[in-house]
């Protein structure tokens, strides 16, 4: 019998939601657990085994020196490393500190900041180690996670569409919330994957899957501006869960002046 591939799941600074997606695969998780050796998945098992691992899945961003060091050890022990979610791929909502003074942030939350150790920035894993694949979303879509795991275990490229939410929305047959109602919507610049959820629930996309490839947000910003969005609204729109993704970061800064 050939040994089963060894899978590890890691958590850095995050809300747990992306790794929870794995446990939310209620119909598939036991089958998946039969196909792989779950060598390290602390949220699910106290049987934590040493590496090396064939595939490491990483949730969360780097916000402490200890985690920056830990991710290097994880990388060294992993043949392939995939990051999942907005925290791991763009720094997450906690990357809002990158636009502020972290000392100020600490003093707001903690009476004795000296007990707390943190970095001035929240950064994606790819800024620290080589990443083999990034799966976007806040949270990720669990079907896409299953596809990525299957692909890596079978040595093929994941079939994850790279177009915009806008395309998904049209395919779903939604009435465009921007055109019909003038609602601000990041759908034209946002990476597909959610299935155009927000417009299907009568609201504009808020960009939780981060920028698509070559998003050209300046053109969208002009449209939103013409429909009543002020500069502060635009800064806030781009500065959420993927605030640290370069295209959104640049666009938010452009409207800050």
């Amino acid at each position, binding site marked *: 019998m050939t040994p089963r591939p060894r899978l590890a799941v890691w*958590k*850095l*600074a*995050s*809300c*747990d*939601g*992306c790794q*929870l997606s794995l*446990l*939310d695969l*209620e*119909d598939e*998780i*036991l089958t998946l*657990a039969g196909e792989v050796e*779950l060598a390290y*998945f*602390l*949220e*699910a*098992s*106290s*049987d*934590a085994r040493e590496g090396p691992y064939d595939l490491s899945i990483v949730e969360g961003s780097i*916000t*402490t020196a*200890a985690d920056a060091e830990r991710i290097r050890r994880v990388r060294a022990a992993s043949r392939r490393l995939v990051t999942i979610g907005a925290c791991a791929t763009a720094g*997450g*909502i*906690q990357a*809002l*500190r990158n636009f*502020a003074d*972290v000392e*100020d*942030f*600490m003093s*707001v*939350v*903690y*009476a*004795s900041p000296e*007990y*707390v150790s*943190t970095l001035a920035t*929240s950064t994606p894993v790819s800024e620290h180690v080589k990443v083999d694949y990034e799966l976007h979303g*806040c*949270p990720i879509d669990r079907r896409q996670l299953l596809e990525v795991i299957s692909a890596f275990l079978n040595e093929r490229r994941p079939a994850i569409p790279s177009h915009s939410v806008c395309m998904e929305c049209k395919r779903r047959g939604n009435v465009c919330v921007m055109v019909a109602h003038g609602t601000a919507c990041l759908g034209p610049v946002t990476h597909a994957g959610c299935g155009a*959820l*927000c417009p*299907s*629930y*009568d*609201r504009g996309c*808020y960009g*939780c899957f981060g920028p698509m490839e070559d998003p050209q947000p300046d053109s969208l910003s002009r449209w939103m501006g013409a429909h009543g969005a002020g500069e502060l609204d635009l800064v*806030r729109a781009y500065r*959420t*869960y993927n605030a640290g993704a370069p295209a959104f970061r640049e666009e938010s800064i452009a409207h800050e002046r």
Partner: protein
Amino acid sequence: MSAERRTLLTEALARVEGEGAMYVRIAGTDVEEVQLRIYEPPRFFEALLRGRAYTEVSDITARICGICPVAYQLSACAAIEDACGAEVTEPIARLRRLIYTGEWIESHGLHVAMLHAPDFLGYDSAIALSRDHPGIVERGLRVKKAGNAIVDLVGGRAIHPVNVRVGGFHRAPTRRELEPLAEQLKVARDEALEAVRWAGALDFPDHEEDYRLVALTQPDEYAIEAGRLASSDGLDLGPAEYEEHFFEEQVPHSNALHSRLRDGGSYLCGPLARYGLSSGKLSPLAREAAADAGLGPVCLNPFQSIVVRSVEILFALDEAIRLIETYDEPDRPAVEVEPRAASGQGWTEAPRGLLYHRYRLAADGTVEEAKIVPPTSQNQLRIEEDLRAVVAANIALGDDALRLRCEQAIRNHDPCISCSTHFLKLEVDRR
């Protein structure tokens, strides 16, 4: 003769949400130190919310926790609506209760079947457990899935739902959309009833704690999405009075703040507190199942929390079915919420217990100040006291067995470290 020193350390607790450790130090028969150390890195939500629009808070605070995002969304909405003097309509309030039942089922379902059950049956994980007892785990997963189906339909997705907003929802589901869900929930309710019987028959250590129970209560229903705070020693508070009676302090060993009562004492929130204060308000089916599973009207054995959680799952399914059957589609999915310069407080019963939010808004609705007190911060001190008692009661056990028992004592309270960061590392240091 010098006392033998022992240290028990679990550097990374398993089967909890987030990153924490346990430290216990024993000298002879004295428990010298117990710590639940939370080293989950802080994310500074209370700071990063400053300057955001009042309409963004529910989506942003959802990201504190992937397991209980609805709790954050609805506590945030309650606080902001309080600040703005807005009140939602009864149909919107009922729909909020419905989506919240889904989160209780999903979160408790995860804990009962995947995180806690392995402790009682001697396995490292539900996956290992499922090889010998597939029925237990598969049933748990189906029940959990039913909870996710509620959040998915009402909220748009199970994790960080998109449909909740200040004032209500972006879009209210139609009766036709909800009806098929009720059928799925009825099947799950039968399985949840079996699960209560199964949980009641597990072996529990004989252990009771003298808890001060704190939970929201309602006059005529089991509190979920609203209520007044009650305690086993007679508190009766509205949200505006919370901070007069409870405070948070920082301790060196944890990135989670510890909450205490003003008199310095600890308290317990969560399933045992809700059940102890309101078991009479459960649905008849849930009440009967609880009695059949051996629970009295109050349960003070933390190891039996798995039974109480199972009862709450059954109740939540019953309640969700009732809410769907009596669903009154709102005329408008949300009420208008006009911002004003004011402060507001709000709270709800997250799966792990009371979740309090306070915001101060500027006239244009910009958040000037935010305060969030998650259930695990409130329970942290009490969890450490449980640990101390469990160590003292089991001091004759060898290190490995005692460490496992201690870890189980922590998991009894389903701590959510991601939420609490402002949580826990337990070592046992026996000298």
